[in-house]
């Protein structure tokens, strides 16, 4: 693996991790913008804009774009979150140049009003789709309840109303502000020619204009509120708990990641043995959610409504035990084995590697090899995890539940 980096005069950073023995390459634009960068008046614009980026440029129609992607056989997509918007493709090396040219063109879209109005329907269908996915819905609502007025509580999708109200000019203004080259990273991994990547970037992106880009970063420990809503068509109780954790930039993030594996990995964790093995719940997991300047633990459960009381008793006991008794060396070692193996397997294919490679750059502004990650996970001690539990007890949770009528 060889790391490469270049910054264009307008601030666009290009990074590469070369693996000549890979059969494919993966490329992506990482834009440091998401729903946390929106005001209430433009709620949902980051995600809607991500859809609109595929609608073409002054020279390309939406169909031309889809056609151009499919001609290369690329496996491509885009995703919008609270903090980043990512456009990526996995591709056979011979088509990499075509795809880089195409993505670069699309990063300066036409944002036509006709396309904008038609796409509103698709966005509203997507909002409706997620309403029929209670596990997603509960997380989205709990995020809002936990963060309150903190921008990380902003909904990625927005609401039907906010999408209806959105004007194309508001989207164009948001685009100009956020898709500034100094707020974007172009990342390439796998089998590629670095010089060609740089030449295309210079030719296609070199003239993009810079803006002053800002993001307000503040920490929060959440509202601590508990709410429940009923949906008569549901059969299970869907529960989400969010508690505070360290941010993506923190040195303690490795300990946080190990803690969530010990408590809530899908197999072999404390949740697993006390909730899944005995079939008290249908699913139970805990995940660490590192964010820019703030962090959380998500614990999610899905169970028969009659078991909700018992499930929450068990969860509260697990959280209390952590605080009182800490964790064992064996638990930590098992969690390390799981995370290290996942890390190696996930990153051995360019498509998998791209996201952690680009993500690390966006959040930390530094290159981290797989070896760096392995070393840092291995070095975590029991004391560090215990001290993390002391400072960020999962007991300090905000809770949202969705279930059938009681």
């Amino acid at each position, binding site marked *: 693996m060889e790391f490469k980096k270049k910054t264009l005069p307008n601030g666009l950073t290009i990074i590469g991790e070369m693996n000549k023995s890979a059969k494919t390459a993966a490329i992506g634009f990482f834009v440091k913008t998401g729903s946390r960068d929106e005001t209430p008046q433009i709620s949902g614009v980051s995600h809607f804009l991500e859809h609109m980026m595929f609608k073409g440029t002054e020279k390309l129609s939406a169909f031309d774009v*889809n056609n151009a992607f499919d001609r290369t056989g690329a496996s491509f997509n885009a995703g919008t979150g609270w903090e980043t918007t990512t456009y990526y493709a996995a591709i056979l090396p011979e088509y990499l140049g075509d795809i880089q040219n195409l993505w670069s063109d699309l990063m300066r879209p036409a944002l036509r009003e006709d396309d904008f109005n038609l796409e509103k329907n698709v966005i509203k269908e997507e909002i*409706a789709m997620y309403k*029929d996915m209670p*596990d997603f819905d509960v997380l989205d609502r709990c995020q809002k309840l936990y963060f309150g007025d903190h921008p990380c509580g902003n909904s990625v999708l927005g609401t039907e109303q906010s999408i209806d109200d959105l004007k194309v000019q508001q989207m164009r203004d948001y685009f100009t502000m956020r898709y500034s080259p100094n707020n974007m990273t172009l990342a390439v991994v796998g089998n590629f020619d670095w010089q060609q990547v740089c030449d295309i970037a210079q030719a296609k992106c070199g003239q993009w204009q810079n803006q002053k880009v800002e993001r307000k970063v503040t920490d929060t420990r959440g509202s601590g509120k508990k709410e429940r809503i009923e949906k008569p068509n549901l059969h299970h109780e869907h529960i989400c708990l969010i508690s505070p954790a360290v941010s993506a930039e923190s040195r303690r993030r490795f300990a946080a990641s190990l803690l969530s594996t010990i408590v809530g990995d899908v*197999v072999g964790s404390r949740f697993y043995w006390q909730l899944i093995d005995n079939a008290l719940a249908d699913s139970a997991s805990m995940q660490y959610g590192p964010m820019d300047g703030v962090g959380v633990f998500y614990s999610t459960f*899905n169970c028969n409504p009659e078991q909700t009381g018992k499930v929450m008793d068990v969860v509260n006991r697990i959280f209390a035990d952590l605080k009182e008794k800490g964790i064992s060396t064996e638990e930590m070692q098992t969690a390390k*084995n799981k995370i290290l193996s996942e890390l*190696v397997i996930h990153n051995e294919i360019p498509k998998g590697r791209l996201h952690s490679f680009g993500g690390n750059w966006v959040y930390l502004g530094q290159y981290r090899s797989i070896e760096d990650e392995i070393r840092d996970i291995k070095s975590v001690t029991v004391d560090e995890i215990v001290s993390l539990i002391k400072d960020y007890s999962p007991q300090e949770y905000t809770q949202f539940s969705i279930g059938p009528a009681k």
Partner: protein
Amino acid sequence: MAEKLNKHVLKNGMVILAEPIEAVGSAAFNFMLPAGASRLPDGCCGAANIIEDWIFRGAGKRDNVQLSNAMDNLGLHRTSSVSSSQLNIGAVMEADNLADALELYGDVINQPHLEDSQFAPARQSCIESIRGLEDDPRSKVMLKVRQQFYPSPLGRSTVGDMEELKSLTPEKTRQIVKEHFDLSQAILSIAGKYDFKKIVQQVEKLFAGRQTKPQPLPKQGASGQKYTHIHNDGAQVHIGLMTKTVRPVDKDYYNAQLAVSVLSGGMSARLFTEVREKRGLCYAIGANYHALKEAAGIGCYAGTNPDSAQKTLDVIITEFNRLKEGISEEEMNRAKVGLKSSLIMSSESSGSRAGGIGGDWYMLGKVRPIDEIKDQIEKTTTKSVLDFLNRNKFQEFTIVTIGPKKVNV
């Protein structure tokens, strides 16, 4: 491409297949056991799902907790699934741990404890999964449409039937394990980094001593009804649809695959363009090829608001039927490139390649080298696809909808 298949057949009939992947440090394996939903006796729908859970609750010299810890300590990413024909169990791991992992799975297959005390939680967890499916209409609609489309019992639910699950006992389920963990029809497939000689020695030791006899294949009955509506006061109408096509052994297999790719291979394909891009009717829309050994179909899913459901279905059916009228060379080229590149990308991952070679062996009795598949895709022409579509017109559609509103079919 330099891939080379390793193959070995044990005396009891169990097949071991392996294919190396350069540039990876992982290995993946998958056992296909002939204990899928449709292979089990009538009245036992869901037994395969209980077994999928129960066999891991203690095996060989390890109890439930010890076995799970042993797997976690090897960093195994466990995979398991119940299909119409098979119970699949396997894992992806760092290559150095392959031998230790196979040892554990040898215990799981040969000496699962299947204790009475572990039966109740295994069954309860299957019951909760069925209940959970009610809150996931998108998955439920495709499961239901396969149930209606395939001749019984081929389309039998791969999640289980609530009433039949509740009636199963530990004795009955243990009997099913005994009869259906038939090694003469089992396939072990491996991909990634491995030493085949060592694997063969180990697998001989683990499995060769066990002789089993195959169970008779189930008799095929009739398919279900053509239209089923399940009322649910959700936000969308979820539409699942299937129509008959040729099986993987058929000479027209590649024509069928390319036809599906023209319909739904990418964002420029027919369904995405007509339903989403031009009309804005849906967010999620797509079709795929779905095959069992005995029968195959093209499946399609769309989720849309209740007022657009009828129009969405009408456009989908129009697009299926319009396909035979003409395909441009450009569409065909995109379909070919799309199929070829997804093939190469899936061959990079040890997990998906292990599944792929096992699936090929089961369906075709051979493993198609990647280059052979590429050649076959290359050789397929617009004319051959159109001829195929005209010889095999889409005559009937099996449709299931879940949501607040019915459609007219």
